[in-house]
């Protein structure tokens, strides 16, 4: 799949944002005054900023509100609801933290849950697609949630929790890579099954339907060289999970957190780029390209 920057930024930022908001909502960090304003502000900025950047790849963003209508069947619709609900519910919590109103935390808990649900919905948009075997697996939501929780914990300085979460994330990532490599073949998709002419012999492309380009090839067919993939995977896992985790063994202070988060974000971006670039859509079979 084509790794569109807007989508990468969106999922990384909102993932981290909602994770952080979740921690703020649960009150695991209890800032007050301007600090609270700043932290909540950061959480909202990341989450909302991410959502906004996601609308950049819409052909008709002016109709975006319609995306709320299909929550019964569409994960994208559900994501829309969950995200809005989370952001709305957490607003009073943020306000109370900032102005020190000391309102009860219950809403915050629900808000936090909605944050995780939002990220889960986002992940399910990809995970539901049978057409992209690499995505179509439990590791996809697990990984997204892993990023969300680990990132959130990291940002909110929950070093112990974050450490464990990052370790689990590392495992999830590696599991995801390994599993993903097998899945396309395992599902039995091939040019033969796509065309049905395998019954005659082994098919291969003679001539593409058009010499001119098209949306499908630009959007669904993206080829990364194996050797790059290996490097990038190592970078992703180390930067997103292992380095930050190690950093947490150092005395935790704003600086180490900042550095760890920086590593984590870069790693997350790399992972997300791979998430798309490595994902093979079955339509590639018709073009003999995957």
């Amino acid at each position, binding site marked *: 799949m084509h790794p569109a920057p807007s989508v990468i930024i969106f999922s990384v930022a909102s993932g981290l944002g909602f994770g952080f908001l979740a921690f703020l909502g649960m009150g695991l960090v209890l800032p007050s005054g301007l600090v609270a304003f700043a932290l909540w502000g950061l959480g909202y900025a990341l989450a909302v900023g991410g959502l906004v950047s996601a609308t950049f790849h819409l052909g008709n963003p002016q109709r975006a509100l319609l995306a709320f209508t299909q929550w*019964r069947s569409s994960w994208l619709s559900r994501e829309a609801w969950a995200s809005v609900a989370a952001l709305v519910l957490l607003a009073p919590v943020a306000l109370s933290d900032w102005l020190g109103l000391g309102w009860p935390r219950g809403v915050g808990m629900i808000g936090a849950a909605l944050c995780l649900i939002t990220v889960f919905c986002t992940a399910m948009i990809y995970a539901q697609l049978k057409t992209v075997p690499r995505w179509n697996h439990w590791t996809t939501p697990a990984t997204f949630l892993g990023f969300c929780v680990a990132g959130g914990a990291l940002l909110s300085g929950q070093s112990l929790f974050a450490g464990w979460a990052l370790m689990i994330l590392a495992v999830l990532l590696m599991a995801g890579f390994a599993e993903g490599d097998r899945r396309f073949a395992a599902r039995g998709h091939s040019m033969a099954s796509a065309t049905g002419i395998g019954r005659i012999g082994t098919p291969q492309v*003679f001539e593409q*339907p058009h*010499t*001119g380009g098209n949306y499908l090839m630009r959007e669904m067919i993206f080829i990364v060289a194996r050797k790059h993939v290996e490097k990038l995977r190592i970078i992703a896992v180390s930067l997103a999970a292992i380095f930050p985790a190690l950093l947490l063994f150092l005395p935790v202070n704003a600086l180490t957190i900042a550095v760890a988060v920086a590593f984590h974000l870069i790693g997350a971006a790399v992972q997300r780029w791979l998430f798309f670039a490595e994902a093979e859509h079955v339509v590639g079979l018709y073009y003999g390209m995957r």
Partner: protein
Amino acid sequence: MTHHQPHLDTSPPVSDEIRRTTCYMCACRCGINVHLKSGKVSYIEGNRAHPVNKGVLCAKGASGIKQITAPSRLRSPLKRVGPRGSGAFEKISWDEALALAVAWMKPLQDTAPEKLAFFTGRDQSQSLTSFWAQGFGTPNYAAHGGFCSVNMAAAGIYTIGGAFWEFGQPDWDHTRLFVLFGVAEDHDSNPIKIGIGKLKGRGAKVIGVNPIRTGYNAVADDWYGITPGTDGLLILSLIHCLLEAGKIDLPYLAQWTNAPCLVGPDGLLLRGEDGKLLVVDTATGQPAAFDVPGVQPDLGAVWQGSRTVFQHLAKRYLAPDHAPEAVADRVGITAPRIRALAAELAHAAFDQTITIDQSWTDFRGTRHATMVGRPVSFHAMRGISAHSNGFQTARALHLLQIILGTVETPGGYHFKPPYPKPFDAHPVPHIMPRGSGPLTGPHLGYPRGPEHLALLPDGSPARIDKAFSWENPLSAHGLMHMVIANAHAGDPYRIDTLFLYMANMAWNSSMNTAATMDMLTAKDGAGEYVIPRIIYSDAYASEMVAYADLILPDTTYMERHDCISMLDRPISEPDAAGDAIRWPVTEPDRDVRGFQSVLIDLGARLALPGFVDTEGAPKFANYADYITRHERRAGVGPLMGWRGDGTATGRGAPNPDQLDRYIANGGFFQAHVPDAARYFKPWNRAYQDWAVEMGFYDAPQPYLFSIWSEPMRRFHAAAEGQGDRQPPEALRARLKQAMDPLPIWYPPFGEVAAAAYPVHALTQRPMAMYHSWGSQNAWLRQIHGRNPLYLPTKIWAKHGFAAGDWARVTSPNGEIVVPVEHMAALNPHTVWTWNAIGKRKGAWGLDQNAPEATKGFLLNHLISELLPEQGDGLRWSNSDPVTGQAAWFDLRVRIERVDAQMQSLPAFGPLPDLGEPS
């Protein structure tokens, strides 16, 4: 959970108006319904009522809407201001343009008309253009047939009185076995597809004989991946097998062909005092005229030492050198496969005979209770004809059809009116008088012998293209591909003005394209262009435009009148004569004029006979007026329908309402062949009488198929030294070989290069492109925007090619560097590419970096219009020695692997954009 869905209007209005005319995205002439919304063309679909396409359209036809809006359309007359080839023009008015043309032509008309050479390409108004040239008095006129497929046309006319091409077709509804030789698309684009669809629908068998397995050959049930240039060998070997097994239609041969005629000592057929062919009657054992009632011709007869044609042919083809085992290696098909093919032909022809319950009477007066047919049919085109042995190969194929008894019988091959028409019912070539004055007859024709060659008293060729000379005696369509080369060489003489219409001669239509561009721009010692003046009519900014001095911009096909005439290439079906028109379904938004109207205007300004009235005033207002009022023979005009008071067909006075009647009828007219006349046309009284009534000819003319060709024998004899008109010594040997009165095979001349250039290189028509002119089409160019060279597995592996590689392809004439791709369904000694996709930078209103110009390419650079010099110090044209047909497919090449490139070679400087700003 309930399911809601938006309300949808499933009956939206389609268009304001439908105008029915004829497509011209190619030469197939399908009927189209042009939909208009608020005056603009909005949609094009096929006309269901139309005989050619019956409602369907091809990819090109449905894209016509993008042709009439293409930025490449020329906008106004242009006069060259910069050097030729630079594409620097100034716009001029039509008055200036026409005045200039007249100023150039008039002096020639008065003193040396032959110095005007008028040649036309794709066009289908040859009855007008030739009539004009005849009036002008130049012998130098022809259309594109010479570089197209004249071998097919001439071999057909000389042998069976009709050809493949689009002049006949299989009996799609009855045939059980259909064999395609060397066809990718052909002019009958949609009819062939419709036909193949019918066969597939009822599970009838299709066999493809072709080095390349795409398109029709891809759906063929069996594929014979023949080695190029060897079809003659294969066909004669099939004939060998059929003779050997006695699987031949003897009654057919005896009654309808010259097989029972007697070959006299001089190699000509014996005739009676009345000049009629003689046969020996089995009843009496005595010779009798072939057409006397009740005669039963004896195929085995010998009379006064003269044996029948049948004996000659049987003896020749039964000889062991025609056995499958003897030819298999050269043909690239195993002997058992060849024998299996022969068996299938015999099986379909003789074990699946079909009978139609329809009585008919032959020219001898014999009444036949039914029509018995042999459901085997063939179609062949340039794969056979575009080789230097193509004429004889096409003759061989017709012989195969004949011995199977499948021509004009149910289930076999059928002529479309005005065919059948034997060679001796066609005119002979005319070149006289030399000096001013109109020619005494049409330029092109079918010579009966050396006496009809177009030679000057000194024996030199009378025509600039050397048509009807000893170099190619039966060049019935001329040699358009030689005009520029000969004019440049001043051989046989120099000309002054080259007048071209609808032919992209500076690019895909010429052999040796780069050299052709040089010839067009070459100057003599005095700094004058060797070809002093070039006038060209095109509708679009083609590569050729840049090489003309005066451009007469044509309209597109939806903006003018055209006439698809019985006098030219009509739209007949085997069961119905048909002709058609185009008419302006939309008005041009540019300062352009239909070329035919312009030609008629020029004709009037030059006071050509037929173009001015007795007072010398213009006879016709425009082409529409000409179509309605011109009469070629009394009562016979361009259109056959609704003549006279509107009830007359074929013959009748001009009818002022004729065009309206055509428009009301969807742009075409059909006259149906009576049931009793549908088959056996050449010998069928009912058909002959109907044809006379229609005005195809003035008296019934039944004839026998020419297995033994007397015209060929006359040239043959001349080559042997008989007769007073003798060929140049250098040509004797090859004439003796090529003019054999019975079909033969000889290696294509291209083979001389075989040692150094082991690979055959071919082109194919893409179904979704028409020559050079589809690339300006926004939809079609997305389908074929570049063309790779396809390499067979053997070559791919041998040179270690990998995906993305390019190759250097070298021929005796030069080299090109092009992208390659692998193809397994391909003859192992053959490479190929799609024809005419490659474009010159800047041409056709396309971006200079258009893939057509950076990745696309032409094979033409590798093909020379002349053969390599072979010891005699002379270089003959790269053409069939009989007809002069351009031998495009004799090409031999060598392949080397090179790394991926950015630009295919050769590349030429960009042309300025002459089209509309897009």
